[in-house]
């Protein structure tokens, strides 16, 4: 019975895995197979439709941009130059390709080149570590710092940096917002005292948070610049994203069912027992709702903040590719866009699952 409930709850959070779970389970009855095929069929169809529309849109934009280039050549350098431009574009030469929205196949190619690039860099790194092993051992024996690989970061390293930053920021938000939320939730006077503070700082944009943190960290923390960028970006992300958790925690704690409070009063529970046995458990669902919003906000503002902080994550990757303007830059940006979207989706689903696990009230839909 208990397991059944757990399963049911998990389905809410990771329901998109349901077809997979059903497929993997040994007992497949006919009905579920049909509905599985139907469900995945519809999903597949919508993906194909999306790619098709994207392809056509990209093609149209490509034609417009090509026409514009040829016309520009005609106006500036005459008929001959225009013909040469047309021939060059038709030949597929990378030097004169119209720069516009990349097509699905270009994006796919970019993804593969990014993966290949990652493999090259990984091999490079391994070779470096091997080469330096003896030297480093000696350096460590002498009490000096080992020499580390400082080459280019691969796409996966970049993703990893972003995830690390977002989790550090999320953790910071949790450590600040949950205790403060509990304290101000418990005391109505503190709540009204803090209210202006929350109302004023909640809507402040990530860019401003970044600048504020930059001013403070710059003076207080002396690390090398990449450490600095990491510290600044995760603190900014945390501060920017913590408000939802703060507000939800305070609300959850202050709005505990009056019946529970009465029970605690009749039993004369002490403050500690009252907080940890009654108030906190009953506000956990709301706290987790807040944490889920915090995580998704953190992931959303991360991109902008990494860009500003020059932290080696997806935000900076996107910005550098845009600045770079190389032939496959645009398609790399789209790859990053999908990666960002998919990771954000998975993070949200993960939090939803956790949230459903702590939610004791089955009817409480979120």
């Amino acid at each position, binding site marked *: *019975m208990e397991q059944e409930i757990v399963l049911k709850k998990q389905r809410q959070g990771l329901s998109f895995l349901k077809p997979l779970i059903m497929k993997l389970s040994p007992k497949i009855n006919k009905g579920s197979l049909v509905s599985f095929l139907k469900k995945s069929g519809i999903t597949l169809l919508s993906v194909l439709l999306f790619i098709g529309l994207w392809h056509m849109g990209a093609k149209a934009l490509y034609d417009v941009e090509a026409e514009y280039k040829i016309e520009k050549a005609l106006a500036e350098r005459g008929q001959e130059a225009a013909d040469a431009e047309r021939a060059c574009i038709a030949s597929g030469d990378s030097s004169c390709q119209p720069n516009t929205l990349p097509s699905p196949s270009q994006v796919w190619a970019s993804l593969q080149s990014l993966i290949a690039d990652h493999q090259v860099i990984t091999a490079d790194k391994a070779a470096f570590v091997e080469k330096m092993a003896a030297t480093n051992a000696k350096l460590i024996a002498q009490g000096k710092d080992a020499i580390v690989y400082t080459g280019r970061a691969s796409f996966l390293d970049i993703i990893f940096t972003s995830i690390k930053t977002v989790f550090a920021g999320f953790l910071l938000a949790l450590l600040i917002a949950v205790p403060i939320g509990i304290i101000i939730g418990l005391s109505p006077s503190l709540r009204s005292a803090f209210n202006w503070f929350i109302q004023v700082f909640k809507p402040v944009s990530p860019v401003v948070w970044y600048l504020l943190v930059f001013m403070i960290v710059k003076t207080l923390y002396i690390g090398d610049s990449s450490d600095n960028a990491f510290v600044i970006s995760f603190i900014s992300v945390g501060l920017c994203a913590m408000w939802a958790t703060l507000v939800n925690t305070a609300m959850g704690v202050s709005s505990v069912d009056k*019946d529970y409070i*009465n029970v605690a009063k009749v039993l004369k529970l002490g403050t500690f027992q009252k907080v940890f046995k009654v108030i906190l458990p009953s506000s956990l669902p709301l706290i987790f709702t807040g944490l889920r919003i915090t995580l998704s906000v953190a992931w959303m503002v991360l991109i902008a903040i990494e860009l500003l902080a020059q932290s080696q994550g997806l935000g900076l990757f996107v910005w550098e590719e845009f600045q770079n303007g190389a032939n496959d830059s645009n398609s790399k940006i789209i790859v990053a866009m999908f990666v960002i979207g998919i990771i954000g989706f998975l993070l949200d689903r993960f939090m939803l699952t956790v949230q459903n696990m702590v939610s004791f009230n089955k009817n409480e839909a979120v």
Partner: protein
Amino acid sequence: MSTATLSTETGTTENGIFYPSNVMLDLSKLKKVYPTPKGDYVVLEDLDLQIMKEEFVTIIGHSGCGKTTMLSMIAGLNPISGGNIAVLGKPVKGPGPDRGVIFQSPSLMPWMTALENVLLGVNKVFPHATKTQRKDIAKYYLHKVGLEGAFNKKAMELSQGMQQRVGIARAFAIKPKVLLLDEPFGMLDSLTRGELQDILIEIWNKEKITAVMITHDVDEAIFLADRVVMMTSGPRAKIGDILNIDFERPRSRKSVLEHPDYYTYRKHLIDFLEH
């Protein structure tokens, strides 16, 4: 005989007022005012009621007359606007485990098991008992209410009736002197209701405590009570009438229904409520 020995033998004195020793609860000149935007609303005024030790009193009255208000003031959950409430001669200053409460909704902590819910109070009231002893107390009362199979079920997985059983076990397990019940069976079907009435009476009889129970059900009021207290309609509600129920205990539902006085009692209550 000096006054000191008198007070220990037959009663206590508090603030110079003499209380006969068999009075458990004493409400005198009780008043409750709720401030509202349209001015003060006087719910109760000049309400006098004495409830004896080991007595079972049921309270009936029209909806909104102030029954819950009165009970929550006895429990100490609601401040008194005027007059006095004394438990064994001592004025009530706030809630406490000497007055157990069973609310209309079971109000269990849904994230705890049945056992943990009962233990919550037991741990508080018996701080010097060992863990096993406390668990035994909790289990004993859960057993009494017929939940021996559901110790470790989460409260949210229990049916309404089972939850209210846990509520009864939780209230008795803290060994209160007075048990206050606010329409505890109002949300249950009549079959479960009857079962829980029997359980309630059985434990009440065994524990020899005082019970005050609000109900809307005239038959329930008669079946359970030594006295039925009728409240007048608000505002400024007070005690309108008190009916002694002289059936012998233990009572069976059948013998009560067949008793010649039953319909006289019933008519008395219904006449009161209809005027």
